[in-house]
């Protein structure tokens, strides 16, 4: 019975979401895209942050690598983003491996890892700002060539909506599946007790690096979608702290190391933030970030296990499972 719910509920949700474009306005679809993209990115961050327990504060590094790679390749040699996204993913994987190796080899983790990732992302902001080939501070446009599915450019929002819906569904399916496989358990073991994991034959360095690389690849693919959807990127909006903070925020609010937590966090917070942005944005451009800050502080103070964690605790208490 329990197992069925695990399958039925997500499938039902998927059907509802797939039917949304039939009656939704463009604006609703836009919000839908933002929610799904946020859910996708937060789920990707959660692989490393939630399951493997390494909290990156600079995941925009990988978002930017994906976005800039595909956009640059399209601008320079007309390469379709459908292929460019995999080049971006490859770059992100290489950078991710390098960062992971550098940090984890010497046991730099926890606060150290957070410092290093934030510094690296910020370094990219300055680097790209100074690279004229990448558009400098001005950034890059994804040149509009008209409705052209082969080049990942579409009239209207419906196609974008379906693309990010499929990406998110596949990612969630993958996390659901692999969190219950050997690698999933290994990530949790490394997070929970590194020495114990090593003693039990877990290559903790390799597991951490692998988690980082997977997370980096997922994030870079999201970056490509980001660029195609907004058709414009600049160093601050892809490499800056904004995207990094949002990724971790939704994951934390929803529940770290859970399959559905990050998506739930995004579903709850993004519409509110968008409302704040659109209603207060003219007088107060940081409204949604202020909101995020307040939410983050409150969650850390009062429900550090996020929404899913809270529900699980209540559930257990209801069943009287705790002696």
């Amino acid at each position, binding site marked *: 019975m329990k197992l069925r719910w695990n399958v039925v509920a997500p499938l039902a949700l998927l059907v509802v979401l797939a039917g949304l474009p039939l009656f939704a306005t463009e604006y609703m679809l836009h919000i839908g895209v933002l929610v799904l993209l946020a859910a996708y990115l937060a789920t990707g961050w959660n692989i490393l942050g939630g399951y493997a327990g390494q*909290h990156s*504060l600079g995941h925009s590094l990988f978002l930017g690598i994906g976005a800039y790679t595909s956009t640059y390749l399209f601008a320079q040699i007309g390469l379709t983003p459908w292929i460019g996204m995999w080049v971006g993913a490859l770059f992100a994987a290489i950078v991710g491996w390098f960062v992971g190796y550098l940090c984890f080899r*010497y046991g730099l983790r926890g606060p150290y890892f957070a410092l290093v990732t934030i510094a690296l992302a910020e370094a990219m902001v300055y680097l790209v700002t100074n690279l004229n080939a990448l558009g400098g501070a001005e950034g890059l446009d994804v040149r509009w060539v008209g409705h052209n599915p082969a080049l990942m450019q579409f009239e209207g929002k419906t196609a974008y909506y379906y693309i990010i819906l499929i990406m998110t569904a596949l990612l969630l399916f993958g996390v659901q599946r692999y969190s219950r496989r050997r690698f999933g358990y290994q990530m949790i073991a490394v997070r929970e007790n590194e020495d114990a994991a090593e003693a039990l034959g877990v290559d903790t360095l390799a597991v951490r690096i692998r988690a980082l690389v997977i997370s980096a690849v997922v994030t870079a693919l999201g970056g490509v979608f980001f660029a195609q959807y907004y058709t414009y990127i600049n160093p601050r909006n892809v490499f800056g702290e904004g995207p990094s903070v949002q990724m971790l925020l939704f994951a934390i609010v929803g529940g770290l190391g859970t399959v559905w937590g990050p998506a739930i966090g995004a579903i709850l917070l993004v519409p509110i933030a968008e409302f704040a942005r659109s209603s207060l944005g003219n007088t107060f451009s940081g409204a949604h*970030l202020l909101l*995020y800050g307040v939410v*983050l502080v409150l969650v850390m103070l009062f429900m550090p296990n996020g929404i899913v964690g809270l529900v699980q605790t209540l559930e257990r208490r209801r069943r009287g499972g705790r002696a």
Partner: protein
Amino acid sequence: MTFSPELIAQSIITGIMIGGVFALISVGLSLIWGVMRIINFAHGEFLMVAMYIAYFLVARGGWDPYATLLVTTPALFLLGALIFRGTIRPILGHPSMNQIMLTVGLSLILQNLALVFFKADVLTTRTEYTRMILSIGPVIIRVPQLIAFIGSALTAFLLYWYLQRTDTGRAIRAAAQNKQAATLMGVDVQRIYLLAFGIGSATLGVAASLMISFYYTSPTVGLFFGLIAYVVVVLGGLGNFLGTLVAGLIIGLTESVGAAILPGSLSRVLTFALFILVLLFRPQGLFGGKRA
């Protein structure tokens, strides 16, 4: 571009001056880490708050920039102590991630509150010191930068003396070394934490007053200085007081000499490259650190 010896000499002098300030900004972060193993990711935003205080006292109140020390320092001590009491202390026993995320949240709040109150404008002061210079041969020393350097060095020295020579300072160091032992020796660790957080923040008040004559203020200014502080503390070895000071000078020199020989803001990239090199070859920082 020609790299004249004068230009290099000039940038070295400027680098040392600025490096002193970087060191002062970073020392508080390192102290807090050393004592309670917390990185305050709102460190830069604390500095931003102090700079606004200094700015308004100078620009609206007509204060002498250096007199603002009398307000910024206690104000930042208070800010640090209050934030510690209200938000960090309740979750001290929690995983370090929770404390990190909490301070990230605080930084978002402070930065965007500044945006509400002061808009995104970049504010600069013109004081009687702003244009003062000393020339030594071809090299110019800007007086406000010299004062900032001397002030930073003095503050760092005072702080070092306080930690080494006073009873409270010793208690702080004892708590940093071994919490249990310190408790057994009768040190009130909770009070020490509060004190360390307050002092670590108060150094930013000093830094703000020293910088206000030659540095602009904006809601995002903390982002830059926070980052500099992160790089400096990692370079110097987290929790290593003297290492932090030297690393501050190194970063100051890197930024300044880099700016002289590289176009645009590429010197910043040089700073980060140095950071990555250190990670590659001396991950414990140039001078060793205390890791959790």
